[in-house]
């Protein structure tokens, strides 16, 4: 065997070993909805989770324990692992949907449908593996687009599994794997950590950093749960208490992950209560703030971060200004009964990438849709949080770069044109590097959104317009999850696959996926020109 083949095999081994680790964790994670299914006596669902969990666990174990590797990891390997890892998670994560859809008898599934309603259980859509894959990808990437038309009709176990998948996907599977599987070597841990999050080191070791991230994440989620449960109880005292707890847990998880799956048929609008909508502002906002920011405030006690942190401040300011502007545009269009109620909720939901829906966006006028796409969904929340989009910090950097460029014409030739951004001072070279990387990313991002919008335009139903196509494409790529109705079990499979790829790209910030494609089609040799 020659040397090149040996290295390639070593690389493959290393990649599969790491993916094995991720699958083991996925297997463990499926035990939680198993318990929930048992609590609600959904035995078919429980069986489904048991089998899918065991399959994931054993495949993972096979890959992780049996492959021994000595290959020195490189940056590109980490990126390939991230891309492949997320794909495998989404594929394997689809198993419970498929298995449960097949083994649950029709009459049992029909029991999940609320007694007042009269429709077929949405569970059976998942007998189509593509729909199950879509749902799983939408879950783990915290998007929130869904194939379960009537959510409550898939059973509590699966509802909980959907929320859990968003919650785990939010803080990151790889980060979780690093926190739990301590045997990763320092270098691969460092490289992997950088692929999925802001790469900010909070503790001297990556393992400790990953654990801190998860502790904070868990902490904020628990806070959201208590907040939602108490809030719901106060606002809607006539509600069933166990329902309140179940809904609050699910919404706390999907809110913190800015995922947007809901336990209701029509999302947060299902409460039909204005105070309940206001109650849900906070979890969305908390989810859009960067986890390192929480760490600095609560662990390092840097309270001045609350008003000094650029990202946090910009998100709050954008939420206020953007939601007012959107509401105003909607009231001008004069379509909705309550433009301000819908405008504010939808803007925050879109900017934070949550995707809880209270309004029929399909009915909106074109300017409002374009505004929410460009001014909220493409922008997204803070880097280092669970949101999609290009991240607000990149948008700010581009604007700062523009001002800097204009301003530099007013300096003398020999001046060092330093620029200050986010408490850091950049020399011209450094700033140009940052700008180039950011601009390239934003450009690719928008290009993908546009390409997908065109694909949507040719494959969607006749009721929709080009702005609807743009909206649906942006929501998939920004892992937002708001929908104007194009996403539906009856949609074209090609379009469905397009959105699956977009969600995957959106969660990983595109580059890892492109590197994976480069490796598959062109190999690992550098292209010399």
């Amino acid at each position, binding site marked *: 065997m020659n040397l090149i083949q040996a290295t390639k095999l070593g690389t493959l081994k290393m990649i599969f070993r790491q993916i094995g680790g991720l699958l083991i964790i996925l297997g463990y994670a499926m035990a939680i909805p198993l318990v929930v299914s048992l609590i609600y006596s959904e035995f078919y669902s429980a069986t489904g989770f048991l089998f899918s969990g065991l399959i994931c666990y054993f495949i993972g174990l096979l890959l992780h324990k049996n492959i021994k590797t000595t290959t020195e990891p490189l940056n590109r390997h980490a990126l390939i692992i991230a891309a492949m890892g997320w794909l495998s998670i989404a594929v394997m994560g689809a198993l419970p949907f498929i298995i449960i859809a097949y083994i649950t008898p029709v009459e049992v599934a029909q029991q999940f449908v609320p007694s007042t309603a009269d429709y077929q259980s949405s569970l059976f859509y998942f007998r189509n593996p593509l729909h199950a894959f879509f749902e799983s990808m939408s879950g783990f990437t915290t998007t929130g687009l869904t194939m379960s038309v009537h959510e409550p009709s898939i059973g509590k176990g699966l509802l909980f599994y959907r929320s859990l998948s968003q919650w785990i996907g939010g803080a990151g599977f790889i980060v979780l794997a690093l926190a739990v599987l301590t045997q990763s070597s320092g270098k691969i841990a460092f490289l992997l950590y950088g692929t999925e999050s802001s790469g900010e080191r909070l503790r001297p070791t990556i393992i400790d950093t990953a654990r801190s991230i998860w502790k904070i994440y868990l902490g904020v989620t628990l806070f959201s749960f208590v907040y939602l449960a108490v809030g719901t109880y106060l606002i809607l005292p006539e509600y069933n208490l166990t329902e309140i707890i179940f809904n609050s847990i699910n919404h706390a998880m999907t809110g913190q992950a800015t995922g947007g799956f809901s336990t209701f048929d029509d999302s947060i609008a299902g409460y039909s209560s204005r105070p309940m909508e206001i109650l849900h502002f906070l979890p969305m906002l908390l989810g859009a703030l960067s986890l390192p920011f929480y760490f600095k405030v609560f662990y390092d006690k840097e309270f001045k971060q609350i008003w000094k942190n650029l990202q946090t401040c910009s998100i709050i300011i954008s939420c206020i200004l953007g939601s007012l502007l959107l509401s105003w545009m909607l009231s001008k269009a004069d379509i909705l009964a309550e433009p301000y109620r819908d405008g504010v909720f939808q803007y925050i939901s879109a900017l934070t990438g949550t995707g809880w829906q209270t309004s029929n966006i399909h009915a909106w006028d074109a300017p409002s849709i374009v505004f929410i796409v460009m001014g909220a969904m493409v922008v997204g929340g803070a880097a280092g949080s669970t949101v999609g989009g290009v991240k607000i910090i990149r948008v700010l950097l581009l604007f700062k770069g523009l001002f800097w460029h204009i301003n530099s014409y007013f*300096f*003398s*030739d*020999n*001046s*060092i044109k*330093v620029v*200050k951004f986010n408490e850091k*001072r*950049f*020399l011209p070279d450094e700033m140009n590097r940052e700008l180039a990387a950011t601009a390239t990313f934003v450009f690719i991002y928008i290009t993908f959104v546009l390409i997908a919008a065109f694909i949507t335009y040719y494959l969607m139903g006749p009721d929709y317009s080009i702005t609807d196509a743009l909206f649906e494409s942006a929501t998939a790529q920004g892992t937002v999850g708001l929908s104007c109705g194009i996403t539906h079990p009856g949609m074209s499979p090609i379009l469905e696959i397009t959105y699956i790829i977009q969600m995957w790209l959106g969660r990983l910030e595109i580059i890892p996926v492109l590197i994976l494609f480069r490796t598959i089609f062109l190999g690992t040799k550098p292209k010399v020109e």
Partner: protein
Amino acid sequence: MKVIIAGDGEVGFYLAELLEKEYQDITLIDKQSEKLAFTENKLGIATIAGDATSYKVLKQAGIKNADLLIAVTSVEPTNITTCLIGKKLGAKYTIARINNMEYLVDKDTLDLRNLGIDELVSPESLAAREVKYSLKSPVLTEVFNLYKKDLYMMGVRVENDAPIINRSIAESAQLLSNSSFMIVAVLRDGKTLIPSGDLVILKGDLLYFVASDKGKEKVIQYAGKKPIKIKNILIIGGSRTGKYIALRLGEYYNIKLIEKNLETCNYLAKNIPHVQFVWGDGADIDLLEEEKISEYDAVISVTGNAETNILSSLLAKDHGVKKTIAMVENMGLFDYSQKMGVDTLINKKMAAANFVFRQILKGRVLTQLYGIRAEIQEFTIKKNSKIINKPIKEFNFPEDAIISGVIRDGKGYITLGDFELKPDDTVFVFSLPRSVKEVAAFFK
């Protein structure tokens, strides 16, 4: 008094030179024996070649009985270590030269005194402080504080249109009548004169005043100057001194700093806020014109090269800059540069040496001024002294010396001819070196 100085650099040499005149027992430690040989020849003091952080070397220097250990090498950790070891080996008082501003600002963090360092001195930051004071009163060539906010010492150059030119001090006495300032010395052609009433003031004289806070403005009027306000500053040279000036003043003035070395320039640009940095040679006239030197109110030249600094300052003067400050480490150039028209000189080693003197000698010799060979001494009047309750103009005071201010009950007073001394007054006397002993005898 036994003094050990570690580091035969500019500061060390200058300190040794000053202390040698006052005290017998000075030992200088340095690693370079050629340097030491030069110093030994020049000053006739004891020297030891070796590392000041070594027990053996310190013991050899007689650290056991040393009253004072001054570590002024250019390497900060060496200075700190030397003082720590020296203190443990028996030195009574230690002074370390440092570069890291954090140690000065956050004194309590380490509690250096407890560790064994009694005083810290940073020549660059002292120089920056002088620049700061000097920019506050830009028409003065130098200012320093004699006593609290009551007494200042300051220098002003007399120019063409001053009303006092070609008149004796006695003739312009009516301008002095409000007793808020007095002339204590005149520097003319490199010679220091202690004025008497009939001294005629000529164009180009550098007058030294002692003034109260209110008197500062009057001094400026008296010398025929109009107050100017500084807003835009051009600093030439990103030396350590330049860096401290930029750091200290960046918030209050519009500052542009020119530095020759690109790496240094980038480093400074990255770390110092509110200051605009330009990469280029500060001695390049084209560049200075391109950077619009004439639009600046003040030009501060602090490159490592005294000649460059003087040249840039003169160039700035030529372009109409109102205030020029040059760092001149070579004391031989003081007189010429002042004569040619550099407004204010700064000198790191003199700043450091003055600071050290003030710390250790508490009163004996207060300070050295740039360019003039005179000293300020401090005396306390005894109860039964013969000179109390008598106007000082009636004293038979030594020549080439002048009483230049009194502290009474915690307040400072200007001492014109009619002033009468009282017991327990603290008197400042400004005198030429040759009268120092006579003055001391007078107050006994």
